[in-house]
């Protein structure tokens, strides 16, 4: 299985070299995409320097933390997003007759992927850490990568959940788009700006707040007035990520059984 995975990355990198112009255009898009988000934040916060006690530097760090987890997800698990397409075109059935785990096969469909977004994200994260004056001690060095990995798993849980829905409903494009853009909108600001009900949802039901808000509270030593939380909650992100992934993987298995059951 590991051998197959190495081969998969080799193919990806080789295809990337083949389609250089296309690669450059998409890389430019990745830069513009994050640039627009940060640009909008910068312009807004020049006018309004404080967002519930967070300044622009801290907001930058909050964004960079989300961005790195998200781009790690995109680099490793992006194919999950294509599952509805595989199902619609009937290509998914192929995975079921082969003697490897279906999810693993989905993840290793060559797709001209190159971890350019991830490299950009790591650079942004390193810059943001210095820019926001985060204290880099051993806890940070150990937990920052773990938190990012946990964030990627939370992301994977979401995309796997949406992909699984496509076993029942054929068209899930809009659902996917909505979930993705909501994730971006809700993770962009400190969740303390939301009402209690929404904070509960973002913590327990769709745990986006663990991707960046709670860890950022810990790393930046932010006081969360009115929320009565232990700042160490942010260090739970890796565990939440794993748990969330297992829940969605179980849902995926249910979906697979249903898919095979109907024979559709």
């Amino acid at each position: 299985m590991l051998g197959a995975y190495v081969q998969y990355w080799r193919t990806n990198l080789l295809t990337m070299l083949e389609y250089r112009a296309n690669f450059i255009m998409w890389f430019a898009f990745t830069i513009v995409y994050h640039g627009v988000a940060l640009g909008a934040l910068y312009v807004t916060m020049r006018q309004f320097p404080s967002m519930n006690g967070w300044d622009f530097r801290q907001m930058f760090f909050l964004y960079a933390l989300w961005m790195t987890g998200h781009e790690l997800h995109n680099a490793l698990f992006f194919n999950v997003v294509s599952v509805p397409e595989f199902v619609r075109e009937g290509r998914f059935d192929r995975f079921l007759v082969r003697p490897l785990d279906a999810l693993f096969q989905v993840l290793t469909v060559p797709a001209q992927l190159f971890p350019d977004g991830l490299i950009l994200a790591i650079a942004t994260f390193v810059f943001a850490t210095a820019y926001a004056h985060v204290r880099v001690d051993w806890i940070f060095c150990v937990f920052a990568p773990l938190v990012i990995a946990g964030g990627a798993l939370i992301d994977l849980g979401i995309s796997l959940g949406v992909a699984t829905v496509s076993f029942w409903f054929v068209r899930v494009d809009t659902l996917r788009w909505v979930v993705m853009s909501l994730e971006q909108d809700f993770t962009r600001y400190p969740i303390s700006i939301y009402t209690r009900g929404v904070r509960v949802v973002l913590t327990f039901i769709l745990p986006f707040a663990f991707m960046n808000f709670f860890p950022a509270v810990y790393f930046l030593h932010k006081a969360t007035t009115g929320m009565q939380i232990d700042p160490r909650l942010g260090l739970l992100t890796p565990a939440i990520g794993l748990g969330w992934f297992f829940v969605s993987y179980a849902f995926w298995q249910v979906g697979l059984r249903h898919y095979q059951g109907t024979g559709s």
Partner: protein
Amino acid sequence: MIAARHFEPYVEFAKKAFAREATYRLEVLTEVGSLVLRVYILRSLWTALYAQNLAPIGLPLHGMITYATVALLMSLILEVDGTRLIREKIREGSIATDLMKPISLPTYFFSDGVGQTLLHALLVVPSLACALLLVHIDVPPPATLAVFALSFLLGYCVNFFINFLMNAIAFWTLETFAIQMIVRWVSDLLSGQIIPLTFFPGVLGRLVFGLPFAAVYSTPLLIYVGIIPRTAWMPSLEIQCGWLLAFAGLSHLVWRAASRRVVIQGG
């Protein structure tokens, strides 16, 4: 009479596009749902920002929430890319046979886009109803509302031609999707859809007002919330008309060059 008969097929195209869009009911529902959530986010965001900072001149909190909500409702209409068909038809090659039909293709694309737009315009009603449960929207006097509508119409047309040009790039290279996404993302920020262009500082501020994107969202919205005063209505509309003419002219040239290209290639 003759003119009416001339437009008849295009009305039919628009109706067909409308019906086609209406078949994806679940998609339509999710769109309204996501808009409502966005209204909630913008209310939380601007309320938090205004609570702890000095309000900018001329735009109190209720004005800002009105601006952001109306911008969202406008995006229901403006984010429909009616000319996406061009790219698809070029990729499939069916553009060649379409060029032989006795119709004006650009007008066909426009009417198809209008049909799609009308369905999405219907969505404004339920979306607005739901949004009103969450936020209060200021309603300006009738004269302002009328000028806003006119300015919005101009913005719609400018947006159509920008999309048209983006999709027409496909005549030369098929890898246009990335370019299109880049332009779309940049224009989200520079058109004033996400934040009012009046927030941009100094030179940057003057620059963004000088770009064509401002004609799409910013002008109608600033008229709506009253930042563009009555005295500046005419000049603002004139600038929009200027951009419209410029892009329509450019689209005309590009289309001529493009159709010649298809013919030369023997398509």
